């Protein structure tokens, strides 16, 4: 379908939804509150989260429940966007949301195979029960690697689990599996984006590409700082797509010995400054520099074009960051952090 027909409807819908999003003022107000219950009341009475929290009205609410429902409200966007999309776009959107499924799957693997905390699963899974090809009850009641694999049969996940089966039995290490799941997610996303028009592809790169770049950057930094892996291993583990950092740079970064010197290998100015700042300033959580960078970029992009996928992607990211910020505030309130410190944990807070 030509772009001209494909996007206006969904973009108009998203624009309407965006206008409901929480404002700066809302976050101010939320931070001022003293208990999770008050925060719930605020969200219920003043924001669009009301419809997602309806079932708790008039009840005492637990923080975990609230967080879970905020997260769950996030994945409902999938249905809205799909309703307005052509079939190609639908496939892409469907896969975009698989990131939540993969996160769920990681939680399941970790919980079932390593810690097995009661109720942890039902309190934390947000997406995977939506997948009709998976028998949710059997999945969370599974008790071994092979049982999980069996429930996931016919899905690509089972192939991945199969590939690592022997290795897992030997060393009980989930790390390579998690890496492979992420790897699969991004490579599939990228594959689907290949059929995009050049404009769509541009915005895909601008948003998802930047995201991947920054993930790789943080990864390499952390490995260099805390672990000792060889260049070849690092390169095998990172997500093999790049936007503003090229292969050469990644390679020379992987061979660098000192984490502080990584900056030297990046040519792209904004990243260079970003990494430099992130390394220097130890008062702020390392990850937040990168999230805030993407956050600003999203706000720039979101108004740029009405006839491309930019709006959809920006909306999804911003919506996700919003709920992450709300959850941060909730946690801050719960653990009685000073008000101005809570602010410093928010993605939207300028760094």
């Amino acid at each position, binding site marked *: 379908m030509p772009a001209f027909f494909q996007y206006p409807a969904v973009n108009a819908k998203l624009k309407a939804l965006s206008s409901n999003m929480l404002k700066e003022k809302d976050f101010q107000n939320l931070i001022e509150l003293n208990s999770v219950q008050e925060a719930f009341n605020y969200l219920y009475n003043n924001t669009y989260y009301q419809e997602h929290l309806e*079932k708790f009205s008039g009840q005492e609410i637990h923080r975990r429940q609230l967080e879970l429902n905020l997260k769950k409200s996030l994945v409902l966007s999938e249905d809205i966007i799909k309703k307005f999309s052509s079939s190609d776009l639908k496939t892409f959107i469907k896969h975009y949301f698989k990131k939540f499924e993969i996160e769920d799957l990681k939680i399941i693997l970790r919980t079932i195979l390593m810690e097995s905390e009661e109720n942890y699963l039902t309190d934390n899974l947000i997406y995977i029960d939506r997948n009709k090809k998976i028998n949710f009850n059997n999945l969370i009641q599974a008790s071994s690697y092979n049982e999980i694999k069996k429930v996931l049969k016919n899905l690509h996940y089972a192939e991945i689990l199969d590939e690592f089966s022997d*290795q897992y039995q030997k060393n009980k290490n989930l790390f390579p599996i998690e890496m*492979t799941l992420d790897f699969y997610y991004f490579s599939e996303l990228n594959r689907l984006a290949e059929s995009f028009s050049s404009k769509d592809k541009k915005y895909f790169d601008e948003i998802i590409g930047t995201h991947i770049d920054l993930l790789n950057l943080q990864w390499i930094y952390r490995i260099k700082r805390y672990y000792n*892996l*060889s*260049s070849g291993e690092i390169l*095998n583990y990172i997500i093999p797509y790049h936007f503003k950092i090229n292969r050469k740079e990644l390679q020379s970064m992987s061979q660098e010995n000192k984490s502080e010197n990584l900056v030297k290998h990046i040519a792209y100015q904004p990243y260079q400054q970003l990494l430099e700042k992130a390394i220097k300033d130890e008062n702020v959580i390392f990850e937040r520099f990168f999230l805030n960078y993407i956050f600003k970029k999203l706000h720039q992009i979101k108004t740029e074009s009405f006839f491309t996928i930019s709006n959809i992607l920006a909306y999804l990211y911003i919506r996700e960051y919003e709920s992450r910020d709300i959850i941060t505030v909730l946690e801050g309130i719960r653990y009685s952090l000073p008000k101005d410190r809570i602010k410093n944990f928010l993605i939207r807070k300028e760094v």
Partner: protein
Amino acid sequence: MGIKIMKKFQILGLKRNIDSITEEMMRNKEIELLKTEKYHENFKSSQIKNSYKSCFNKLDRILDSLNLNKIIENINFDKLNKVDLEKFKDFIRPIQQKIDKLERITKKLDAEEKRLNNLIKHVYVMRNIDIELQSLKNLSYITLIFSSLSQERYERLIENVTEVPVLVLEVNRDQDRVWFFTFAKKNYQQKALDILNSANFQRIELPERVKGQPREILNQARHRLNKIEIIRDQISLEFKKLKHRHQSQLLDYYQQLLVFNKITDVNNDFYGKSDYFFITTGWISEENEKEFEKLISNKYKKVIYSSQEVKNVEEENPPTIIENPEWIKSFSSLVKLYGLPKYNEIDPSLFFALSYILLFGIMFGDLGQGFVFVSLGFAIYKNKIDFIKNKNAAYILISIGFSSMLFGTFYGSLFGLEDLIPALIIRPMDNIMFWLGFTVMIGILLLITSMIFNLFNSFKNKDYTEALFSDSGLSGLILYLFLLVNLAFYGIQSKLLMPASVIAAVFIILLLLIFLKEPLGNLLTEQRFSIDKKISEYILESAFELFDTVLGYLSNTLSFLRVGAFTLNHVGLSMAVIILSEMINNYAGSLLVLIVGNIVIMVLEGVVVGIQILRLEFFEIFAKFYSGSGRELIPLKIK
């Protein structure tokens, strides 16, 4: 006939009866339970540990590995008694062990076979090299690693191993994997292995015992493969023995565990529990209830059973069970394409069935072709046709077939031949304008009926706003009739029925009523003449709606022209076939054309007419009175 009356029941009972009461409810195939959180917060939804689940899963796997058929036709509840899990475990343990052992061996064989096949594949590539492969393994300064990777990862590996001094040599590849040698200096061996590990490589060990040149290795591997085949045969024989010996007892257990596993799941999903009691709520049909209540109160003295009628349909959202005679049911399946009737709605199945049959006859009137439909329907009914077992199709075919035959005699049409039998009533092709007008009249009748249905529905639900002021309510109905009468009178007499000013006045008043639907409705129900929206918004919205309404009357009515058009279309197509057959000179040829032509008409036009009627029903008729937003009852079932 129609929709069954539902009641919401509640059961409060002793916890020790919980399993058997669940069983009773499962036996009754028309009970739906509500999820716990929907009705009670005070009872904790404490989860009972389902100790059947693990046993059931185990058994399920055993049945799978023994290849036993798990489909159980009818569960015989009376034969069920509590499973003694300990006994079950004792019974199953030796079988499990045996199976485990066999499966372990099979797995080993699989691995071995895979390895051998791999080996053969790759050694085959080197079959012309005259080196002892073994000697490559024991080099003093260089390590040799033979391994495989997925293609994607291999490509990345090649790009990524720039730093470590290793040599990667591709040996072979298929669609997704690459096999290769990696040569590394001894002191870099660990580094090389780390990198390969991070790519999740699969090492292929050259077998220890195997010595010699590639060709010899190949022979040995093949020999070993043959041996594996023989062992496999023995294993499958063992499996068969096991199956034979334990079959009936395993299936017995399976049936019991299946039920009890489900019962415990139901207990967890649908029941609220306190220390001694449990509580549950669900839907049951009124006619079903009496018996069920009697059963429960007779069997379990200490159970409190209570039920209440549906008070607020919107809030409670009861499920719908339609009950109809078989042949209407088959049309219900078409109605379901649109949606199930809401609990308090009229079930439109009968009306739908009658109008469908009528319209089909009018649009596809042919004595011969109708007869073919009827015979086809009978054949399906008698299970004579292998690939269609659906009784619905049989009923539908028979009824529309008869209708088609009836109208065929009216039109005097037999297999598209118009001159073989006399027309009993009319030949549509000779009276085209009359015929089109006539079908529009039928359409008008159907539309009026559907508006009356809407009136009936809304009065029944006490929705007076909809009943009095909506475009398919009373105001709408009067407006529509008023327009029709005036038009008809003007059409026949060429003058106005009433003075133009009166007509305009009545017209405008009726339109105003529809326009002011919401404030008037509020006046009626809450005694206030106001609206909840902004006035400007309301005016804009209603103005468009009004425009759409008036246009809608016209288009809905004219839409029925297609009924007449298809009658003519049918005659037209038949004529084309007849002309074609006459063009062929020999007798057999023209008969063949006639037969093939008739088949084409029946399939092509039959489908098109069928769909067109569905369209008429759904868009023109259902839209007026039928919401179709009901939900189906989901009974408790074993599976």
